[in-house]
């Protein structure tokens, strides 16, 4: 090898080093993997919270086509002796929808689909309805894929795009989308950005209730020159193909029960967590203990943990550590101040090769008022990797 060639290689390494360190998981940069931690559907108001639906918006930020493989992850629980009944495994002491001799068993079921985006194209779909091509028979009130082209499917049209509705209604779970090539092999195009809008309305009762909250999808960027095109995506650590997930999540929040100093309404915060490691191949959920470190405005520290986190969990903060919210360290009556800062950490297990990290989104609700979703802050990365196992093509 000539010194000039070696110099070029050296320069490439230099650039690669920069790229590796510059890429971080975040919700404000286009990425190769998008994670929507919370998708909810309840169009029949089964839970009594009004009609719920989630609008997913995704766009391609590159000036070339990109294709994505997306996964609906159904985290609904089902009754043990009556699997046709959807229930909530987090309800205590039990979900009354299940028969008396049955318990609610948490579920984790993925369904995947392909969406082809043309250059810079924005698309959207409702989780409850999915989306198809815009044809003459398509409902004009629903989002659809407009570039039908002529003839065969190609990267410059949407002919291959078809989004199924979520597996069940009501539904709670996650959406993950991964940039792939025309052979559905993961690629390193950091092209995708997205948002989720959770829309709550009350049509049947005509109470004129209407509330929308929105959050940005969390992007996991691919690292240049690292993708080996197999079905195991390595996030951070040795052999990383994608940026590593954060070591710690940081949530600034009002303590539950705190009275909003402006609207004088009681505030509560819901936190949704999903693991960075997901196995779509064998559909085995990952078990991670979660530690919470809470500081109030007096710098007083509390902590608690949650053992049974597997694949998806939506917490009301004051129900993490107790069944009686007013006794929770996340309650204003216990913490003594209106706001707090909570550091959230997935505990690495005995298997030191796995990162056991988490991603999440927070929602702030006001009693008799509106709600807002917002991004959870992140800090650091871990030396270990997280893995996403894709179904074999």
């Amino acid at each position, binding site marked *: 090898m000539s010194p000039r060639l*070696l*110099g070029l290689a050296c320069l490439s390494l*230099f650039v690669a080093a*920069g790229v590796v360190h*510059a*890429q*971080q998981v975040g*919700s*404000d940069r*286009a990425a190769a993997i998008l994670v929507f931690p919370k998708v909810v559907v309840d169009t029949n108001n089964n839970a009594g919270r009004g009609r719920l639906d989630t*609008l997913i918006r995704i766009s391609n930020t590159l000036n070339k086509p990109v294709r994505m493989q997306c996964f609906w992850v159904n985290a609904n629980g089902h009754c043990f002796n009556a699997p046709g009944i959807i229930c909530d495994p987090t309800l205590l002491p039990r979900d009354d929808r299940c028969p008396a001799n049955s318990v609610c068993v948490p579920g984790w079921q993925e369904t995947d689909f392909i969406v082809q985006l043309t250059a*810079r*194209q*924005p698309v*959207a779909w409702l989780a409850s309805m999915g989306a198809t091509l815009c044809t003459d028979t398509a409902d004009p*009130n629903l989002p659809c*894929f*407009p570039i039908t082209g002529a003839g065969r499917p190609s990267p410059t049209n949407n002919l291959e795009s078809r989004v199924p509705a979520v597996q069940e209604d009501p539904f709670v779970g996650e959406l993950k989308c991964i940039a792939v090539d025309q052979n559905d092999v993961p690629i390193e195009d950091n092209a995708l950005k*997205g948002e989720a*809008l959770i*829309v709550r309305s009350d049509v049947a009762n005509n109470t*004129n*209730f*209407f*509330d*929308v909250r*929105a959050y*940005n999808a969390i992007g996991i960027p691919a690292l240049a020159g690292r993708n080996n095109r197999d079905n195991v995506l390595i996030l951070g650590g040795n052999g990383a193909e994608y940026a590593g997930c954060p070591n710690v999540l940081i949530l*600034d929040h009002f303590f539950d*029960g*705190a009275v*909003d*100093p*402006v*609207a004088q*309404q009681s505030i509560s915060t819901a936190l949704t967590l999903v693991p960075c490691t997901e196995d779509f191949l064998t559909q085995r959920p990952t078990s991670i203990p979660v530690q919470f470190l809470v*500081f*109030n*405005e007096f*710098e007083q*520290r509390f902590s608690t943990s949650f053992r049974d986190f597997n694949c998806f969990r939506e917490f009301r903060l004051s129900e993490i550590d107790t069944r009686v919210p*007013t*006794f929770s360290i996340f*309650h*204003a*009556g*216990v913490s*003594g*101040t*209106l706001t707090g*800062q909570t550091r959230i950490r997935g505990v690495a297990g005995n298997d030191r090769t796995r990162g056991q990290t988490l991603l999440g989104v927070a929602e*702030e609700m006001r009693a008799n*008022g*509106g*709600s*807002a*979703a917002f*991004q959870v*802050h992140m*800090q650091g990365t871990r030396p270990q990797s997280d893995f996403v196992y894709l179904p074999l093509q």
Partner: protein
Amino acid sequence: MKGRLSRWVVRCAIVTWVASGLLALPGRADVSVERGSSIIIFPKVISDDDGLLTRGFPVETIIQISNTSNSLAFAHCFYVNAAPLDPRQPPGPFNPPQWQEVDFDLVLTKQQPTYWVVGQGRRVDPTDPQCSRVPPVFSCPNAGFDPGAIPAVPPNFQGQLVCIEVDSAGAPLNGNRLKGEATLVTPRSTTVNGVTMRQGEVSKYNAIGIAGLNTDTNSNDGDLTLCIGGNPRPGCPAGAEYNGCPDTVIVNHFGERATMPALPANDIPNSRVETEVTLVPCTQDFENQVPGSVVVQFRVTNEFENLFSASTTVTCWSNFRLAEVGRIFDASFLGTRFAQTRMTPGGIEQPGFLGVSEEFYNDGRGVLSRAALNLHVEGVRPGGDVITIPEVAP
């Protein structure tokens, strides 16, 4: 030849190691909405109980800031009032924006969160009663260590809040300890032209963080000129002290007045969505109170991949509905319900800018809801920006 080659290999290894090490220190080279930073910017702060600046709907803002480190953090914060001189009159050449800054200091103990209501400020009062479980008292405004005397903004305020991490003497410091959120709250139910925004209707966004570079060695020279990205230049002889502002800001949005598909059209046919974007230039001169100005170019792509463009000028602070920029944002013109808009400065000599979007959803039955979203960013401004702050101590 073999010796020469091995020398090259050694040099290459050293350069790569040094490069990766240097680049690892800052960890990234762009702004972020979810990492602790040394400068945090809240682009949209409104305190308007009369709704004069907000289409008749009163709005108040709650600011939350916290220290993400285990050591004491100091910050110097600036409100910039961009309301017109007479908020009761429409803005124009005879009623220009004030561009008036007011600054104050914050002190946060380790991991301390704090908050204040923009229209109320927060005074230092250690006797503020705490919340309690017995007896049940869950309204305890300002309980906790007060971070400092925070002035209330004047009535009918609209503008931005910028907080800069400093040391105990007030000199800028690269500690990357600060994070924050802003919550826009409707204080009471209000009906305007048959449309009601309920009490407690809220939208929330994360403050935009600009990280200081090389926190270990503190590349910040501690002077009053904060160099945001870019190479060495007049005023910034050592180049960047902070990460650079983005080259492109991207927003996904509904076409203006598009219908909300999540509402069943048969039952609720007349819903519509409008998007408001708030932009602030990255270059700001708080010392001379010279507002930064940037021409913003919009390139809009609809779902058919059709491309449209428009432009507007942002001086100091600008908050506008997309429809106010041009008809190209209208759903009836776009031809599709959704679009992606890329916003870039009008030229290399122009400053960068940051922003946030807020969407307003009218359900067609007279109820209005709102949600804020942080904007996506792409690239880094090559020329860099500068924030000039006033002297903090004689």
